């Protein structure tokens, strides 16, 4: 077949269908592979979000996996830690309090009584939470101290 053939002539003369079927199979395989990769990627990247109360209730199931925990910084609970920049504090949600050991840099608005979301995991078999990132929640502004989900109590800007 010459490459200078005009469109209609070619569509009549070329062996059209087998080529099309082969393309279809290739596309299906490609799509399937892509879908599988995306599924694997997204399911392994899931980070759960729990309030401190929910986290303690689901303590056994959470094991030492990484998740986001939400609570309010208990006033007066902040203490310097062992390493430089490390510190500990407690967060509360409802009646539950969780001890937190933090190694991340706190954002500007971190302080007593501030609602926070922490990224990290429970340590060993204890109810102590090791946090390496602190996100400050804010009810009436959007704080992007770190690019992640920040949940306002009423979800609103104002």
């Amino acid at each position, binding site marked *: 077949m010459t*490459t200078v053939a005009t469109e209609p002539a070619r*569509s009549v003369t070329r062996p059209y269908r087998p080529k099309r079927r082969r393309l279809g199979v290739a596309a299906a395989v490609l799509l399937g592979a892509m879908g599988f990769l*995306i599924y694997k*990627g997204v399911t*392994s990247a899931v980070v759960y979000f729990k309030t401190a109360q929910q986290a303690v209730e689901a303590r056994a199931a959470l094991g030492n996996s990484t998740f986001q925990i939400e609570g309010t910084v208990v006033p007066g609970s902040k203490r310097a830690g062992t390493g430089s920049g490390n510190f500990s504090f407690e967060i509360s949600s409802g009646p539950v309090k969780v001890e937190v050991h933090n190694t991340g840099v*706190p954002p*500007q608005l971190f302080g007593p009584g501030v609602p926070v979301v922490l990224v990290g995991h429970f340590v060993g078999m204890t109810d102590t939470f090791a946090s390496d990132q602190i996100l400050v929640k804010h009810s009436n502004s959007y704080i992007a*101290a770190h*690019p992640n989900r920040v949940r*306002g109590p009423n979800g609103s800007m104002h």
Partner: protein
Amino acid sequence: MNGTIGHVGLLVGLFGAVAGIALAGAGIVTGRPWLVRRARTYSYVVLFGALVAVVGMERALLTHDFTLAFVAGNNSRETPILFSVTGLWSALQGSILLWSTILAVYLVIFVRHVRNRVDEPVVSVALLVSLVAAAFFFALMIGPADPFAATVGAIPLDGAGPNALLQDNILDAVHPVFLYLGFVGFTVPFAISIGSLVAGSVGEEWLALARRYAVVAFAFLTAGIVLGAWWSYDTFGWGGYWGWDPVENAALLPWLTATAYLHSAMVQERRGLLRIWNLSLLLATYALTILGTFLTRSGVVQSVHAFSDSGIGPALISYFAVVVAVGVGLIGWRGDRLASPGGIDAPVSREGAFLVNNLIFSAIALVVLVGTVFPLFVEALNGQQVSIGRPYFDSFTVPLGIALLFFMAVAPALPWRKASRGVLRRRLALPAWAGGVTLVALVAAGVRGLTPLVAFGLGAFAAASALRQLVLAAVTARRHGLSAWRGVLGRANGGMVVHIGIVIIAVGLTAASSFAHETALTIQQGATAHFEGHTISFSSWERYANGNEKGREAVMVVDGRRFYPRVGSFDGSSTGTATPAIDSSPFEDVYLALTSVPAGLVGPVTVDVFIQPLIAWLWAGGAVVVLGALLSAAPGRRRRPTDPSSVPLPELADELVGAASR
């Protein structure tokens, strides 16, 4: 008073849209073109209504009319004039008003473009579809998202003021406008593709028109995304600019499909191929703008941007469902009739490269879409709240992005139909050398790391390839007795300018993500610290007042230059906002952000220090992309009559239209 003006404007706009729909619909169904011509006029009524409503809202904002809930919530007596004006789009209801107004402007421009051809089925259906879109958004404002709703209860003496972060920076005042100009701009191409499907004709010239609108919308959307990233970097003190947040993804998704379309549209114009695919991409782009608005404005996805919860979620998702159902239905109905004759001859050809480009862009869009909506599905299925972290997005987009850089280098050199080895060698030799030499020079200069080296090498390859095309186009223009500047005008040449901009962005992204350094320093007053070759010292704490903003700042000196990282608040609000201090240069940014301010302003300072190489390239590259997109919307050099073409020249088509109207 302002509320009345606004409501009248909204009602006029809705009336214009509904009357236009009735006339155009009746005209199409009964086959009476004069009815459709009459409907045309009503797009001006829609625009008039929108402008009246905008005037009502701006008047309310500037006069601090707190009888309106929107003004009470987003304005205060201390708000400066500029931020009172931009207050229009500082929250949901006003944003919908901005959206509707921009839509009305596009509608009128479209009507003027096609004023003498509304009798043609493609145009009359497109007009109908645009009017339906306008009616939907006006109905939203009369229903669940009323910007002119009255304040409930006692009228406050002073309003809450705009969100502190929104009055921090002029970039924020403008980036939503660009985003909306981009989002809404895809309405016209969408309407034209629905028109083509209903009419059952591809109408290549209408596709050329759709492409031109899409290029303009693409330029605005790019500007909106880049300005948004810049604002995030300048304001938030986290040293970053992109977090794969749902709001950011919502803007990126239509950008990806639109970019794919702008490439594959060329295959259709040149070879008449990929017709259904192109229509699908336009439908998908529009649907994604609506889905993005739903995701970010309905409160279903918790985003760092935390836009307000509102009642517009069900309306938006229903509208999205209708758009998708109509699009898919029409493609199923008309697919065979519109299918392209023939196919791609050889995989190593320009059209083959465009196909691969489209596959990659679609794959990235799929990855981003899944990552964005996956938390929704999990929550719907088992009530668990989850988020998808950055590693997921990076693990897919980095390799796909590198593949894109490679094809960006090779594709412009590929001839249509079939490439021979000789042609490829001749055309790619110089760009490939540029890439290779860059790679060797970087290794010699001590740059390490597989991803950055591959990205920089391919970036140089792609930039050289685009430059080569531009130089050739300029030479050709000269040979035809035209100014060399004609070489950057038009679809393909403007596209090469866009490619150079994308390479600049890619280099900036790679450098900023591979070679950035971050630390937290605590420095006593008068003391000095060292980080990554920089000398950082802390002089003193100061108070400052700047208009309606008051706060505290640290006076710091980095390499002899003064920095003032701050924490301040507006209008005496208790919400503190930190403003980082940034020293930007083409090679490196030094970025200081306060982590806390001690009570009583005594004691050491604790700052986050970021050293970000080449991050300014992101903003510069964004500007080049926008410039290139605008150049490619301009009509290019005429094709020689002997060149193969499946489309009438746009200039010729315009002349024909002009002649017909005279």
